């Protein structure tokens, strides 16, 4: 898994590439923790290039959601691919996370 992080309108956007599996999940968790450690409390994960998410990846998402639960915190996912969307839906995660169809939608909603 590769990632690139950008910052727009006070939101840290992590674009993810490849598979979020048992190997990649700890790396993602570390990057998220680093951002939160730097005081970034609005985080958006862009899944447009993610081909697969495993249970390890799902756990990182939940763990991050737990850490970003203050009233001003924001945590969301956007641009889910067909396969990832299916997994999240069947696992019941679509009711836990805020999911946007594009980065723009997320930024608009969080203004």
């Amino acid at each position, binding site marked *: 898994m590769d990632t690139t992080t950008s910052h727009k309108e006070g939101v840290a956007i992590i674009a993810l590439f490849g598979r979020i599996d048992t*190997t990649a999940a700890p790396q993602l968790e570390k990057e998220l923790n680093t951002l939160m450690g730097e005081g970034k409390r609005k985080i958006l994960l862009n899944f447009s290039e993610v081909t697969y998410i495993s*249970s390890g990846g799902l*756990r990182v998402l939940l763990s991050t959601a737990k850490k970003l639960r203050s009233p001003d915190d924001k945590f969301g996912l956007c641009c889910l691919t*067909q396969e990832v969307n*299916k*997994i999240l*839906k*069947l*696992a019941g*995660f679509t009711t836990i996370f805020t999911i946007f169809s594009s980065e723009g939608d997320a930024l608009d909603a969080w203004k």
Partner: protein
Amino acid sequence: MRLTHGSDLLENQRWQPVPGDEHAEIFPYIRKVDTNSSNSYIISTPTQIILIDPGGLMEQMDLLASEIEKIHTANPRPVFVYLTHTHVDHFLVIQSHPFFKGQEQAIIAAHSAGAATLEAADTTLTQADLFQIKLTSTHVPIQFFGPNIEPETEFFEICPLEAPCIRVQESDRNLGNQLILKRQVVVSEPHDRIEVYHLPGHSHDSICIRVGGLLFIGDLLFAASPGVAGQRGWNQKDLLASLQKVQWILKNEDIRVCCPGHGRLISSVSAEAVFANMEKETYFLTEIQEINPEWAKQTAWYANELMNCVAETFTIMAGRCYRASHILEELEETGEAEHLSGLVCLDAIDSILADFHRFNEEYRVGKQLDVHLALKAGQITAKLEAVYKTGQLDLIIDPYLLKRVERLLSDYMTLFRGFRPTIQREEFELDQLVGHCIRTLVSPPCSDEDLISLADDETQYRQALVKRLVYVPVFEENPVSFDPAEYPFNVIADSERLNDLIASILEEIAGLGGTDIRVSNTKENSRGQVIISTEFTVPGIDFPGEHLGFMRKECELTGGFLSSEKEGDVISIVIELPAT
């Protein structure tokens, strides 16, 4: 490195005495089990050097050649190369390693049938075609159990121009019960005595070689294993007889250690028990499929599809558990949340599946072959089955998902063993099965009434609550409607597999956001049909897409036929079944 299996076994890659032969020394080269190369063994006696199974890897042969050079320089003697059988992983280096080019003293010895295989550069009996390896003809000067032995002579001499004379003595033994142990004894000097037994089954040319208290057993130990049983040259009847014979050898001869063609050495006591078990297993290996390149191609395809499906199902199960645990934490039921997380052994499963994915990536770029992927999937499936059974997921997860994974893993192992998965055909009313399948899918495992009735029993209430929380109402947004047939009718199929197939298609559709999900049963002449149709409002959804092939395969195992149709925006999956 000490070999850990057994206390008196040999050390790897070190010269040491051969147990039971004070004049001989051995240098074992033991590898982790794989399909690239076998173990190798160098035996040094005062009058000869014997290399048993040089293997398939150049770097392995480099080391063996260097050891042989050292002892040969110290005491020049002829070098013999014995092949326990002519499978490519046991001999390939002979064709390309410099040690065998112009090495006048390396004289190859094999069973006469194996010699013919090597002379003919046969890529099927050597299994070379499975690994896409090309062969050139190899001459084998010493041929055991060949037809050219004159029966009236007790001894015959093999004197290739390059070699000193060795004598081979016929020494067959009647073991009773119509079992004849074909044995030849190779004698060069008074102290050098090597016994060769013909023990076919794994291959037609398999021999076991005895030096002192060591028995070199080639691949006899693996001959009943999945992915091995069924190889070209494999024979069940011969194998059964060979297993009885090798047990006799272990019981009656002073064998201390068995040296297999792959993996760790094994004491003769342990080997005897293993061979006894193998004999029982081998009785059931009737009518198994031949392992050839086509089998490897089909099995690799199935393995790939199946692992994707298993990975997805495990992820969904894990996600449901994590989600329920998350909700329990929100409800400040931390203890229950931790207990739920503890039940899930999915981290281990995740690692196992990631291992398969890494291997599959190598396969996709051509670094691994069909047969390698099929074998890898076999290992992965066995690991998953072991981990999966230790979990207690059945307490919390939808039984349909658990059964599905169990069946997928079991089907792969069945196919991998060379059998066809069992289709339990029975007659049943199609409407009843489909109706029950849908009701089960859309209903929570514990109703509100169930929860209320359990409110007085704290333990049961918590269990029911967890089960309810793990359940995900995937059809809540897009319900499934069912149109039974105009007149109820029966079909003949595997009802459990059909139920599983319909449920998995419906969940796939729900997961992809299909709307207006309809299931209808119809009958035309002697064919019953289950038609599952839907529409996708989100553009670009690829359904059934690349899953169609796997769905078809799954449907074949119900006893039916599956096809996909598209009319306007409506996509339908049609399952056809024989009706009565």
